[in-house]
């Protein structure tokens, strides 16, 4: 299965992945119109310190603790992708408690934020990958 992999050697800390992620969820055509004046809530986030930077988003674990821990059944694993049913989520944050990567984020929107590999958007390749100018984020099939 194709996954998002992050290679910090090439991460520039430009944060474009976050903006493209936020843009993806708007389903707007134009990023300026989509994000103008908004504080973005991306599903991928860059950690940076002392010249090191890298983006973190859901790893779509084979044994997802967030799914196993989810008290509502809002988180499910469908064809290897950990999906969130926003309708079901009640923001209890049990998944935040469980995720070892810190890749599920609390949010004010009534449901937690997490990467779904953009499969609910128009983009076939996750937008963070498309938006990364340096292939620090790639979407690849690798041996597991």
């Amino acid at each position, binding site marked *: 299965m194709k996954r998002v*992999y992050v290679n*910090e050697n090439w991460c520039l800390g430009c944060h474009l992945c976050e903006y493209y992620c936020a843009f993806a969820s708007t389903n707007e055509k134009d990023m300026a119109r989509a994000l103008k004046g908004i504080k973005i809530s991306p599903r991928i986030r860059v950690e940076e310190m002392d010249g090191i930077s890298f983006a973190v988003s859901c790893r779509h674990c084979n044994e997802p*603790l967030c799914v196993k821990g989810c008290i509502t059944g809002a988180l499910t694993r469908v064809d290897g992708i950990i999906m969130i049913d926003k309708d*079901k989520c009640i923001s*209890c944050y*049990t998944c935040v*408690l469980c995720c070892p990567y810190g890749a599920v984020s*609390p949010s004010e929107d009534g449901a937690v934020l997490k990467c779904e590999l953009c499969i609910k958007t128009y983009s076939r390749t996750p937008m963070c990958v498309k938006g990364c100018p340096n292939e620090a984020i790639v979407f690849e099939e690798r041996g597991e």
Partner: protein
Amino acid sequence: MKYVIIGNSAAAVGAVEAIRKNDKEGRIVIVSNENYHVYSRPLISYLLLGKTNEEKMKYRNDDFYRENRCELKLNKTAQRLDIKQKQVIFEDGDAESYDKLLIATGSSPFIPPVQGLDKVKSMYTFTTLDDAKALDNALSENSKVLIVGAGLIGLKCAEGISKKKVEISCIDLSYKVLSSILDDEGSEIIKRHLQDNKIRLYLKRHIIEFKENIAMLDDGTEIPFDVLVMAVGVRPNISLVKDAGGRTNRGIIIDERCQTSIPDVYAAGDCCESMDISSGEAKVMALLPNAYMQGECAGMNMSGLDFVFDKAIPMNAIGLFGKHIITAGTYSGDVYFETDGKNYKKLFYSDNKLNGFILIGDVAKAGIYTALIREKTPLDTLNFELICKTPGLMAFSKRARGEMLGGIKSEAVSS
């Protein structure tokens, strides 16, 4: 192979999903004493709050049983086990034979013996959907609700009914709220927050006597109420195993394969007692993620795999009136502490390991701490100072990060 599962909640689902990974053919019979499609019990407070509904509360979708080829028997209460015949005998006299049996009976609210309680007409508990519906029916505008117990159930109940224009009072024996999961300072923050949300708290108090619609407290206070909710705690439902001669303590005693002392009988979820690896003590850890994972572990072993679940720790994620609390592990050892009044963080560590933590307010990335406890990660392999301040992968070694995020291993040579 015939699997029988008594109980129809998270542990049962965990077991079914695990069994069906390994055994597509065997019969699975699920028996529930309730009359519902599997639903998430912790959601009952959200139901009252209006954040969910009965449909959305379903823990798995409507096709769950069909897809997993489960025979579901509702409204059926198991009475006893015949472990020689490998049968479950039900209260209605029916019997169900099993090859592998899972006890996932959960827990029941504990009602303390208080004088005059029998005179209270409007007394409710708050653990099942029926409980919630009954409570909801009992409430009307301006109802005075007295909740006995300021623990997780009591306070979630308080939150659940808070939007209904009712007056809520909450009484607890302990001097603090959420005493089972919070330290004193953390508790104090929540206490103030509850009070800000108009919950009347009576702490370090107990009820001497009920007089119809009045609770008489030890300090002489009288609290009038229309509706009483008993939420002092729950007791694991252990009798099936205990009566059959299996080992029990507070809960059913299981090993790391979720096996009871009775052959082919497994137990999972709130009814059992298992090892808390953060403290090294056996405990009842009544929380949904553990229930699921124990059920999963039981299911794996029942269907013939050798599977160990030895990562259980106490943990909680709870939101009360918009304030989030995440805790895990054991509160012992050295302490890292940080607060800005709104947010609160306490980490407990000793012997190069993180033992536990309490986060209030900003709970982002709490799972990174949870993983440190669960994996017993040696703290000297990471930038501990940094991770205390900011949970993140930055505190790990580049190599560890490479493994977590991928992408580096293949290029290690060239850079």
